[in-house]
């Protein structure tokens, strides 16, 4: 049940789907920079680190979809979809966080059908002398000794750009692989599109799995720091049984879209008086 295992790793986020239903709204905007400078490329790569260092309030809304296809009737095809909204406010002991996720997984073959849905809502923050993770869905709480332990054990992610590794160094890509668009005249906002084909082995002739990954991001400057505004990625997977075969039909697909906003927000921790200790 490879699909189910894969599906269970899934998640999130979607309010923004509507906001960006016109990803073309961003998608086709900007002026292509024919020969981006290393300064421009390094600034864009640096935005990943900038986000990790960001200490202001933020909201992430995200959606993720994962598909597994089968052309054999008795092998299940599946789809898993998730949405997530996550907010963080403040720093240090005054930091509070909120996360809500919904997940739907479906798997279907000629002989079977499975549907799973779930919702989870969590808060983190310091209440009195306790560092608490509060799960409102099942009314449980977990206690930590420090804010760092609370954050790392909460399941609430830090402000990060998932799967942004290819953005770590943009200077080595060809113009077929990477296009950079200027969204302003002063290098304060960009749109970038990165399309890469990768294999499970270094050389295609030795590979049995092929990945075609298309990533698109928009970046904006907040208080003088270049930060991601959206990050969208589609991964198409192709398999073949033997290295001498041609690549088969589409075997799987992963899509996700993250939207980041950096405005001041308010988070009110719920009254956890009657919450049970989560053991």
């Amino acid at each position: 049940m490879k699909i189910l295992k894969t599906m269970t790793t899934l998640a999130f986020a979607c309010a923004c789907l509507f906001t960006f239903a016109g990803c073309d709204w961003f998608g086709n905007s900007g002026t292509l920079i024919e020969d981006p400078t290393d300064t421009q490329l390094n600034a864009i790569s640096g935005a990943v680190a900038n986000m990790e260092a960001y200490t202001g309030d933020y909201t992430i809304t995200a959606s993720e979809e994962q598909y597994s296809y089968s052309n054999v009737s008795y092998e299940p095809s599946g789809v898993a979809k998730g949405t997530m909204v996550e907010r963080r406010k403040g720093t240090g002991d005054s930091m509070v966080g909120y996360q809500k996720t919904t997940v739907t997984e479906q798997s279907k073959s000629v002989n079977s059908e499975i549907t799973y849905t779930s919702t989870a809502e969590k808060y983190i923050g310091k209440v009195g002398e306790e560092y608490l993770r509060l799960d409102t869905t099942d009314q449980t709480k977990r206690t930590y000794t420090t804010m760092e332990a609370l954050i790392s054990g909460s399941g609430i992610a830090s402000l990060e750009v998932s799967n942004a590794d290819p953005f770590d160094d943009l200077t080595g890509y060809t113009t077929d692989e990477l296009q950079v668009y200027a969204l302003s005249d002063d290098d304060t906002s960009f749109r970038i599109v990165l399309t890469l084909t990768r294999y499970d082995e270094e050389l295609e002739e030795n590979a049995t799995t092929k990945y075609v990954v298309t990533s698109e991001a928009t970046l904006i400057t907040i208080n003088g720091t270049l930060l991601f505004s959206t990050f969208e990625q589609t991964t198409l997977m192709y398999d073949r049984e033997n290295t001498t075969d041609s690549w088969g039909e589409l075997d799987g697909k992963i899509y996700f879209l993250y939207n980041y906003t950096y405005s001041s927000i308010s988070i009110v921790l719920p009254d956890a008086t009657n919450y049970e200790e989560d053991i």
Partner: protein
Amino acid sequence: MKFLKSLSVCAMALASMFVFAGCNSGTLVENPSDELKLALDTAVSAMSTTTTDYKATGIKTYDVSSDSYTMTASISAEVILSGSGADFKAYSKGVQSGHQYSDYSSYVMSSNCEFYVEPVAELYALYETRSQTTMTTSSLDSALSKVSLSDNQAELIGFTFKSFAGEDGYSASEYSIYSLGTDSYRVDIEIIEGSLDSASIAYEKMNINLYVTDGKVVQIKTADVSKSRHTINDAWETTTATCDICFSYDNIAVTIPNTTGYVTVSSSDFPQVDLF
């Protein structure tokens, strides 16, 4: 032949329930003889050794309720073995469905498979009708294990009979034998473990009705209620399981369907019914 043994303790079906609608009738056999108890043991044991010419159908249901979630599930299965040697044929079908709900999650599933087995040119062919697939193997055990109903059947029965005549078997207070007519008996078994007082964290009550006619088991019905909780301050979680399995031994026949166009697959790709 583990499969066949499992098979023979197998499965199911409500269709014949009406036959035993009068399941509470009969005459209590006071002080049953050792011969009668041994005959009942022999009938139960025969379920594990009968390898052909019988049909078993049955259904099992689960209901679980607690203060945090509910779950309902059912498994039904049918198994028919017919003939021997070159005339051997087998049929099995399994259907499962279930759902689980809590305030913040739900899980709904269903699955089914239908299999036929027959000898073909010194080998055994398995057919699965819904996926229209065929697998060929030289091993009958392998062929039968692939249909997976052995697991279903074990799941359906859910317990192992103890002896009526043996020293380590049921105690006299745990079962009663009723005569239903000539060479026909019902055995009611009730086993209670734990107690439902405030200090208990687990309790189980199992009722079994075993019907034996002409030295053969013809029906098994079970009702199992168990309750558990983590501490005495928690609410009880209640699980109710019922099972009804009927066996017949006459006029058994299996007709292999037209398998023209079925796709031949490897052993690993042959479909199976997955259990919960």
